[in-house]
């Protein structure tokens, strides 16, 4: 299988790029793919924290591109999955420590050993963004159902197109179906109407994300997490399976839970 470099970006901060990267990476690793996560948010790294791997960092991405160490030395193996690795960002430098050209070389080198290379992009459209998209084949855009997020996502789609990444796909994060039903939140169609790109998946708002982030365990590991299940479905879609976009109706959810309880009782 050809390896693919996917950049996970959004423009706006705080919409869930890092959470998405951690969860999709873990979910793909659970499907026995070889996955490497690259944190390009130099100076504000936290993918390692979300993955619970902070205490294992010795070398980082800046050391790798400057030749201070070999990529293998800087890659941190995940606690739980054999095929999952993390290349952490440097915390003491800033975004200018890496150039787009160096990023391209780095991702190309990693292609040999991995099926999926997920690049966690920093917020904004400056140097960090340019670095993150430099080596990417595809882009995944994360947006929450808020006008500010959708506006920034639209800007990002435009910038990606200008950079030759025309096949960006969208993940709508933190959707609250109750609010959508009441008409208080943008619904999926509103967002797709503006962005007019393919929808990769929808992740519902879920408190368990906060818990799993704080613990350093991606939500996909938790079978009872709604968001985790949504990320698993997205990961299967990235891997090429055809899976319907889930309808997050509260009633369906209650039905699912009811069924699960019955199964447990048996």
């Amino acid at each position, binding site marked *: 299988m050809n390896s693919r470099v996917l950049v996970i970006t959004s423009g706006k901060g705080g919409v869930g790029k890092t959470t998405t990267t951690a969860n999709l990476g873990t979910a793909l690793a659970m499907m026995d793919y070889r996955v490497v996560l690259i944190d390009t948010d130099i100076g504000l790294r936290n993918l390692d924290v979300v993955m619970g791997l902070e205490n294992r960092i010795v070398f980082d991405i800046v050391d790798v591109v400057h030749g201070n160490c070999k990529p293998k030395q800087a890659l941190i193996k995940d606690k739980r999955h054999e095929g999952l690795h993390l290349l952490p960002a440097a915390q003491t430098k800033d975004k200018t420590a890496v150039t787009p050209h160096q990023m391209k070389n780095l991702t190309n080198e990693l292609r040999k050993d991995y099926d999926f290379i997920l690049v966690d992009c920093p917020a904004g459209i400056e140097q960090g963004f340019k670095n993150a998209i430099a080596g990417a084949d595809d882009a995944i855009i994360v947006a929450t159902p808020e006008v500010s997020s959708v506006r920034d996502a*639209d800007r990002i789609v435009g910038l990606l197109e200008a950079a030759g990444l025309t096949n960006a796909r969208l993940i709508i994060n933190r959707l609250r179906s109750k609010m959508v039903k009441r008409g208080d939140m943008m619904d999926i169609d509103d967002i797709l109407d*503006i962005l007019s790109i393919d929808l990769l998946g929808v992740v519902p708002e879920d408190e368990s994300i906060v818990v799993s982030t704080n613990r350093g365990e991606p939500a996909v590991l938790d079978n009872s997490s709604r968001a985790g299940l949504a990320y698993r479905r997205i990961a299967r879609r990235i891997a090429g399976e055809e899976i319907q976009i889930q309808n997050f109706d509260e009633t369906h959810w209650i039905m699912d839970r009811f069924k699960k309880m019955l199964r447990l009782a048996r």
Partner: protein
Amino acid sequence: MQATARNFQEEKLIDLKAFHTFGEMKVGLEQRLGDKHQYSPGVHLVIDIGTKQLNSRQVRELEDVLLDRGMHLKEVLSSASIRPDSMKTEIETAFSGMPGYGETVLICRHLRSGQRFFSPGNLVILGDINPGAEVIAVGNILVMGALKGVAHAGYLGDESAVIAAYRLNPTQLRIANHITRPPDGEKVMVREPEMARIRTGKVVIEKLKI
């Protein structure tokens, strides 16, 4: 005045450029056709009327004159629009009175937030203009999609410029030096093509009847 005629491959060309009115033109044509040596029955004629225009009734009258002598009218050449008024399409009638610009730029994609486009003439967009995007034209702007961003027509001060969109839902509209925005608070969803233009010093939005 003499009508001149010359060979035009199989057909004959009659030059009626010198006549000013249709009456003179018709008389001149009849005189010229009196020359039996040159104009035998069965010949196809092309009539050049120069910068003048004929309506369909006048064309039919000329045809009758020729048919009386057993000749056929092949074509009426005119450097003005050859088509008579009655043949104008509905679209042309809808857009009549709008200024013409030589250059028109066609964009076949969506314009996204942060993207800006300028046209020295007219601008036609086959796609949406998202919020945060901006289109500017010296002439008119036509959006075959949703206009949700900013559009500026008549950039160099032409107040007769118009902005038409399949869904006119802009952040801001500018025509020449007039700037307007949709009223605060109310959200009107119109599911019809609309057009903005300046009438009596104000930007007005009207339905686009096509």
